[in-house]
């Protein structure tokens, strides 16, 4: 059986004159938590959107579990976008119903249980929640699917350290062997201890793809430090 969950082959994407992705080649196995690390504007979100089929690529090929990007690939990817797409006026229970309608692999019981831990009630509306709380609700929704690939785009952007801890713990608690989590971030020091592998992306190119502990061992530095040194402005 093919253990590769995600393959990007010679992927290129241009926005007009600007080359956003330059010949990206990566193969991600299943069963890992992988960090996609890059500065603002390095191409993280573009790559993530391409994998999710939200924008078309100009060259190359993306395969998810051997399938080209499309309806079938979307069924096995649970995606947390950088910006919310949830309607602020809906109640939690309506959103959960919507998710279970939409995704065959959505586990409503699990979602309610996780929300209950956060003291969020079914009748609560998103519009009355704080930014951190909304982020948590979205993460709960994404992690309540039984997907093969979870893609989290900046899951910890703009939230306080306690919320970051909650988010990390939720990710860890709900990660199971058969799946892979790809998460992008520029807040490296907060998440590096949970990463198996790291991908560095800079100016639309992959500059590193390595085992996190191996990189620490070889450099004697934290991933955060290696990153800062390589991408000094």
């Amino acid at each position, binding site marked *: 059986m093919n253990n590769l969950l995600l393959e990007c082959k010679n992927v290129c994407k241009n926005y007009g004159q600007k080359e956003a992705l330059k010949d990206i080649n990566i193969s991600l196995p299943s069963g890992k938590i992988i960090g996609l690390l890059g500065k603002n504007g390095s191409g993280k979100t573009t790559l993530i959107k391409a994998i999710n089929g939200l924008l078309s690529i100009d060259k190359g090929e993306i395969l998810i579990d051997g399938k080209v990007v499309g309806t079938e690939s979307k069924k096995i990817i649970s995606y947390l976008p950088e910006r919310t797409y949830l309607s602020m006026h809906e109640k939690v229970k309506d959103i959960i119903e919507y998710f279970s309608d939409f995704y065959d692999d959505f586990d409503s019981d699990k979602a309610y249980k996780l929300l209950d831990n956060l003291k969020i009630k079914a009748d609560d509306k998103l519009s009355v929640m704080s930014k951190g709380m909304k982020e948590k609700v979205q993460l709960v929704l994404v992690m309540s699917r039984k997907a093969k690939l979870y893609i989290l785009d900046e899951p910890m952007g703009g939230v306080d350290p306690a919320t970051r801890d909650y988010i990390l713990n939720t990710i860890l608690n709900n990660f199971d062997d058969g799946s892979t989590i790809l998460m992008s971030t520029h807040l490296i020091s907060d998440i590096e201890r949970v990463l198996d592998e790291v991908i560095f992306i800079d100016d639309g190119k992959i500059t590193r793809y390595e085992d*996190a502990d191996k990189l620490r*061992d070889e450099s004697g530095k*934290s991933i955060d430090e290696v990153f800062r040194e390589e991408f000094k402005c």
Partner: protein
Amino acid sequence: MKFNNEMPIYLQLFQRLALDIVTGKYLAGEKIPSVRELSVMYKVNPNTVQKALSELEDVELIYTERTNGKFVTEKKETIKNYLESLAKEKTIFYINDMKDLGYSLKEIIEMIEGNE
């Protein structure tokens, strides 16, 4: 537990668990928590826990019972030897540091006795 991000995390977890075994937090023959439990407990990736456990297995501090999970070795001798090797290592480090400061072995011993 606070991890140092500059050292492989699995190695730090291995050292932590080895210490827990030699100091009797986990007793000889006792079942140790599952990969998932340890991953939640130490807030690290399950693969990292797996790597730390396989190192512990290499030094024979734990063993796997195929369906039941992982257990601390029943050989008290192995645990004792590991404890002694840790103590020895720390002693050598200490002596070397003191020698770098210009102390002789005799002076080091006097120093230890004076500080007990």
